[in-house]
């Protein structure tokens, strides 16, 4: 992992490109909000500052996914495809841990930093209504949401032991993640259902933002935590199950 970061640090030019791209993507979101709130003062019970918090969360979580989850899982699938997975399996550490941290796109930290800044600005606007307790809930919900997204990706990547071309399913995740920019409550039920149970977008964006602005009751939060734990265990089990059935390209 250290080697990886050093390798990325060698390409400083990418840093400026990434800052530019992160700012563009943030500007994209902000312009969207500006156009929307030119015509209305509330979007489905969400005030401008609250939607700003959601946008920050969206950028933050997107950053985490692009920083480590997506690059790692894509590399895993590539290795299975090319047969070099065998070498990774031989290494004397837990393979799941290894495959989950070894590919880091360090410059995506820009997205995370910008996301945090936006959440900060939103908090300043919301002012008195946000307490320490809500910030804690936010962090907790983020962790749970992140775990669920990670488990989802790991399970899909594990599928590549049997089916060679799963990358395409991941394209869908990126498209659907776009929907997380807006509160899921506005979508028609079939889309909301998809974004919540089929592909974990709601838990990663709307729910943490709701926790922050105090619209999430603690039983719901406990439910999410339970769900996250379940997802982690399930993906772990599925991964081990997959490994047992993995025969390699050469063996």
């Amino acid at each position: 992992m250290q080697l990886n970061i050093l390798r990325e640090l060698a390409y400083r030019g990418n840093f400026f490109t990434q800052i530019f791209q992160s700012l563009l993507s943030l500007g994209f979101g902000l312009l969207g909000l500006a156009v929307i709130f030119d015509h209305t003062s509330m979007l489905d019970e969400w005030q401008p500052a609250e939607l700003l918090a959601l946008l920050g969360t969206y950028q933050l979580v997107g950053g985490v996914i692009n920083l480590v989850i997506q690059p790692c899982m894509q590399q895993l699938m590539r290795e299975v495809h090319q047969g070099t997975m065998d070498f990774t399996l031989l290494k004397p550490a837990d393979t799941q841990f290894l495959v989950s941290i070894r590919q880091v796109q360090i410059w995506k930290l820009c997205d995370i930093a910008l996301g945090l800044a936006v959440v900060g600005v939103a908090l300043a606007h919301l002012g008195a209504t946000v307490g320490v307790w809500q910030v804690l809930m936010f962090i907790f919900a983020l962790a749970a949401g992140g775990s669920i997204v990670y488990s989802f990706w790991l399970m899909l990547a594990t599928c590549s032991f049997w089916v060679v071309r799963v990358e395409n399913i991941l394209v869908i995740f990126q498209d659907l993640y776009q929907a997380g920019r807006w509160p899921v409550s506005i979508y028609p039920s079939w889309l909301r259902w998809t974004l919540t149970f089929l592909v974990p977008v709601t838990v990663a964006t709307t729910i943490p933002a709701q926790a922050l602005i105090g619209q999430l009751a603690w039983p719901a939060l406990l439910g999410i935590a339970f769900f996250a734990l379940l997802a982690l265990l399930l993906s772990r089990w599925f991964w081990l199950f997959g490994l047992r059935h993995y025969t390699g390209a050469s063996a």
Partner: protein
Amino acid sequence: MKTLLAVYRAQFKTSFLMYLQYRTSSVLWLLGMVLEPVIYLVVWSTIARANGGAVDGYGVGDFAAYFLVLSLVNHLTDNWVYYEFQERVRQGLLSALLLRPIHPIHADIAQNLTYKCIMLVVMLPTVGALALVFHPAAHVMLFTLLLFFPSLLLAIAIRFLVEWSLGLTVFWTTQMSAVLQAYYVALFFLSGQMGPLTLFPVPVQLLAQLLPFQWMLAFPVQLLLGQLDQHAIVLGLVAQAMWLCLSLALMTVLWHRGLRRYSGMGA
């Protein structure tokens, strides 16, 4: 001319077979293309409902019609050749393309048209199903329908030329992903992908009039749906014709300049 036709026939055949091979990926790309209009359709409908049924004269049904037609026109004008240009230059595939006796744009046009025709088979039922969910309201008249097709063809040609030129910038920069993202943001807001341009602040509308984006997408959509008066229709068609010439000139100039640079790099 006759050879060119034969070339196109051959290209259609190979691309057709290629897309049949990659049918799952193609369908998945398509889902992404439909999802975005649906997201903004929902956002605007939510606002319209909260404002008592309409935003600046656009009711929920009008938004539905706008975004569903938009997703179709977006599919028909869409083009991804600028992604391929990166690989072409990086892997040296372009040298092989240059050896062929005809301009590489012909192969791209043929491939692009094949994809669009094949994918209409999936796209039309999808949009039809969405129409059942979202209840679009539109009054299409015969004369706008007749004008729609030429303006759609112009839009396809302009977008293809502009995006092909965009792909050519790879001769000058190695940071294509940033260029493409900037293009995407401009396209999203100024072409009407986010919503009808009349809902935007006046300076943005003026900017959109001066740039090619809305003539590649929003104009044919609004033309078909009868949301434009005669004056705007004539203006739009003239603007489209002008941008067709401009983008053709741009593409030619960039292609010749770029090629000189490319051979200068030692290939």
